Each structure stands twice: as structure tokens, then as C-alpha cells.
């Protein structure tokens, strides 16, 4: 009996440990002027998962995404209510520049800076402190970010070339390298493949699946098949409301809400 008890003690737990919650939205609404663009959205994002935000154009996906790193503040008429907590801390209480280092973002159009490939990634790492770090001090971090973004092998001999000479897919991977160089906790991606060809899209989708190991990823996408390929959970938004959020298989194969079923079936969109 005692042996059995000992055995029971060393049996690994059947249930996996619940993933760490990184970001929690509580009743978040976003307005442009007096018009609500996102209404009363609540959900949470966990470490190690890819959450896809899907929905037709103008449903508030991008607005919601840009609220998560307070980029909406750049639009004078935008405001938000409700609370967004990053690791339990209200993002309004975090200094904007600190928040955006922890919640990084990749945009729809590749937007490399007009400088060398090295400096594009180095820019993210530089100027964190008053003393500007030397090249050799940040070189290992730059290389690591380029490796994680799957770009290092292609550009290792041309790190000093202009980033504007890269192809669209390479530019987007450079933007991802730039975003993850500061080791953020959350990576926001706003339709990161919509300007890319199928081959580059496949590369970036692989990359998103790999990045999930170290951080939480929120992807806005128009492409339902892409959401199905890369996401662990999917949130369907429609006219500013979060209609349904659930595991990817459930949203695509067995949605609860009528709008979700019609949207994923292609009835509208």
C-alpha cells in the first residue's frame, strides 16, 4: 500500500498546468469621437498561444489590436473605456514607451526603416538607455532576433545593406525580427501576410507557430484558412462586438453563434 502511495505521488499530473495569463481585457470599448468601434470586449490571452481575431472589414479587429499597445492614442479622436491588464497591471498606468517594448507590433505593410538591416533591428535595442550601446554590444542580440525570424541565413553577409533592398517577404521578417528583438511578452500582428506572396506567407506562418513558444501572439487576419492553420483560439468580431471566442476547431467546425457559422461558411464577409 505504501509503495502504491509512493507510486501515485511520482505519477506526473495528467492535467497540463494552466498557461500563464499575460493580457486580460475587461469590458473594453473603443471610440472614435462619439462612435464606438469596439463594444464591451472581454477576454484574456495566455503565454504560448496564438489568438486570431477574425471578422469582416470594419468590425474593429485592428482598432482592438492597436488599443492593446495604446497605439490608438496617436489618433486624437480615439478613446477607450474598460481595463486592459498586462500581467495584472493596467496598461494605462504603464509608461507608453515601456508598454510598447513589452507589447510589440508588426504591421500589414512591411515598413523597414531607411537604414541598414543591422540598424533596423539594432534600432529597437538602442536608445533604451542614455548611453548609446556600441555595435559589438548589441550584435549578439541582433543576430539572435534575425535567427528567430528565420532571416539570418539570407542576410548574414549583407547586414550593412539597405533594408529597402530586401524582398517584401524578407522585409516583413525583418520587421518581425525588429519587433521580437526586445523580447516582448506579447506580439501583435495586423494582417502580417496580406501584402505577401504564398511562399513568404508560408514562411511567416511557420514563424508565428515557432514564436508562440516564447510569447503570446495576437494576429488579426482576413484570411480564414490562415487563422485555421496558425491559431490556437479564434475570436470572431462583427460590427464592433466580440461574437464568439473559442478553440480554433470549435469556431470553424461547430460554432455556437449564427453569425459565426454564416461568416466561416462564407455567407457574408
Amino acid at each position: 500500500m505504501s509503495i502504491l502511495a509512493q507510486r501515485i505521488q511520482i505519477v506526473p499530473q495528467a492535467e497540463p498546468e494552466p498557461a500563464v495569463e499575460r493580457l486580460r481585457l475587461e469590458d473594453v470599448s473603443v471610440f472614435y469621437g462619439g462612435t464606438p468601434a469596439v463594444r464591451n470586449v472581454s477576454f484574456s490571452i495566455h503565454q504560448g498561444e496564438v489568438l486570431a481575431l477574425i471578422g469582416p472589414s470594419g468590425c474593429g479587429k485592428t482598432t482592438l489590436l492597436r488599443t492593446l499597445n495604446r497605439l490608438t492614442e496617436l489618433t486624437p479622436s480615439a478613446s477607450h473605456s474598460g481595463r486592459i491588464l498586462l500581467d495584472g497591471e493596467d496598461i494605462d498606468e504603464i509608461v507608453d514607451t515601456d508598454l510598447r517594448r513589452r507589447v510589440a507590433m508588426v504591421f500589414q505593410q512591411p515598413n523597414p526603416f531607411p537604414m541598414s538591416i543591422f540598424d533596423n533591428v539594432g534600432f529597437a535595442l538602442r536608445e533604451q538607455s542614455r548611453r548609446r550601446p556600441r555595435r559589438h554590444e548589441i550584435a549578439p542580440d541582433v543576430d539572435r532576433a534575425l535567427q528567430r525570424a528565420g532571416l539570418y541565413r539570407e542576410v548574414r553577409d549583407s547586414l550593412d545593406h539597405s533594408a529597402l533592398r530586401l524582398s517584401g517577404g524578407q522585409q516583413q521578417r525583418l520587421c518581425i525580427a525588429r519587433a521580437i528583438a526586445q523580447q516582448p511578452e506579447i506580439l501583435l500582428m495586423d494582417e502580417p501576410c496580406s501584402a505577401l506572396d504564398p511562399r513568404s506567407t508560408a514562411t511567416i506562418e511557420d514563424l508565428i507557430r515557432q514564436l508562440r513558444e516564447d510569447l503570446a501572439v495576437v494576429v488579426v487576419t482576413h484570411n480564414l484558412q490562415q487563422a485555421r492553420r496558425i491559431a490556437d483560439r479564434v475570436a470572431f468580431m462583427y460590427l464592433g462586438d466580440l461574437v464568439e471566442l473559442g478553440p480554433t476547431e470549435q469556431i470553424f467546425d461547430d460554432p455556437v453563434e449564427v453569425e459565426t457559422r454564416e461568416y466561416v461558411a462564407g455567407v457574408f464577409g
Partner: protein
Amino acid sequence: MADAAPPLAPPRRRHGRRESIWRWRRGDLVIFALSWLAGMGLCIIATALVLFFAVKGAQYLRPDLLVQHPSASVSQAGSGGFLDPIEGTVLLGVIGLAIAVPLGVTTALWVVEFGRPRWLARVVESTVEIIAGTPDVVLAIFGLALFELGLFAPLSFGQPGGAFGRSFLTCGIIVSAVAIPSIYTATRNGLIATPRQLREASYALGKTKTATIRRVVLPAIRRDVATGSALGLGRIIGDTAIVILLLGATLQIQTQSNTPVLGLLRGTGSTLTTYAFNASPAGDGNAPTKAYAAAALLLLLVLLLNWGVGRIGRIGGPPLHAERRLGA
């Protein structure tokens, strides 16, 4: 398994059938013809100018003119070369740009990136427009009145009742005003054309506005600044009225003291434009062949500058956005 298809080669490019211009509306035809004529007319004028001075230059511009000091002589043979005006042109260009580039760029940065309060930004914009529209002789008279005040004696030298007011420094300050509008306008247009996404990408990396301007926006517009500066330099080296009134238009460079740099900056001299003016039949030098030679050299400098502007446009890799191809 089927044989591999032969590689796909593009066919010879050809157009399908197009509409004849004779079927155009008459008004369209008139405007089309006028635009052709205007373009061709300008080309003819520019070509004539360059050819005329190329011939005159080949006739009168000799290498020894470039290294000899000018001297006041009634005979053309004894009046020397124009080394001093060349040095004066370079020095004035350097001083003018050293003042105009920082002022033009920072003013444009403030107006576009900050520009609050709005009314003040509008006042600044109008001020630059006023400077751009002011004839240079008016600027020169104003500059002379200003720098003859005793307060500004350190810029030239003091004399009873005020200051001399004429020197490379005072002339450089006023001549920078003719370059500021082109530098300001080019910088401002570059800033406005910088895509918003580029700034957002920098903010999204946790950068401040100043870091974004310094490290992202300014590098993105460096070719606009360079183009504006080259155009401004063209205005400076081409100016005559300000140089005559504020540089003294002395044939040779007269240093003010033996202090190495300051003595030169506080001294007087001339540029190729004032030299050409003085040597021409309108001036009192009476050396028309020297005037032709100096004018040919000046035109050569301006052409080189224009070529340089084109080269600057290609520095640092491809532009952020594809430029529209001419004739497309």
C-alpha cells in the same frame, strides 16, 4: 512522365492598335501641341545658353586664370585671373549653407512635427514665403543697415558712428536667407510625404517622438534635405546684389586682421558673379573676355551642382517609394 515544358520566354513587346491623335478633340490637340512647344522651347533656350558659354569659355577660359590673383589694371592682359572670386564663392557658399541648412531644417521640423500653437506655425510659414519673395537687393540693403550698427562691429570692424558692415560673415548671414526657402520647402515636403506607417512602426517599438524624428524621419528625408541644400547653394553662388553690397566686392580677398580664420571671415572679397558683373561692359573693370570666362565657369559650377543633385537622389539605396517614371 511528360517532358518538362520549355522555359517560358517573354514575347517581343508590342502595342495593340491605338487611337489616332487626329480623332482627339481640337482643344486637347491644342494643349498637347502647346505643351510640346513649351518643352522644346525651354530646351532650345537652355541649349543655346550652354553652347554660347561653352564656346566663350573654350575661347577665353584658360587654366592660368584659375590660379592667378586678379589685379586692377586698365588692360585686360594685366588684370590677372580670378582665383580670389573662386575662393570667395566657395567660402560664401560654405558660410551660407552652414547657417541656412540648420535653420531651414529645424524650422521645417518644428512646423510639421510640432507646429503648436497653430497660428504661430502659420506665421512661420508666411515668414518663409515672405523671405522667398523678397528681392535680394532688398535683403542686401536691410542687411547693410543692420550690420552697420555698432553692435555688430565684431562681424566686420568698427568705424566712427557704427560698423563697416561688409564682410564674409555679414554677407554669409544675409545670403543664407536666399537659400533658406528652398531648404525649408524641400524638408517640409519630405516630412509631409514620409509615410505615417514609418513613424507608427517606430512608436510601436517603444520609441519616443524625438527618437523617431532623429533616427527614422530625418534619415528618411536626407535626400530631400540634400536636394534643397544643393538648390540653396545654387541660389547663393548665383547671387549678385547681396555680394556687391555686403561683401564689399573687392577684387582681392582683404583679411581684416592676421588672426587666421577670423581675419578672413571678417574680411571682404568678391565672388564669380560680382567679378563677372564688374568685368562686363556694365561694370567698371572693362574686361569682357574675363567676364565671359567667369560666367562660363559659373555656369559650369551650376551644371555640376545640378548633376550633383541628381546623384544625391540615389544615395543610400532605393527611395522609400518608387518615384514616378517620366513619360510613363
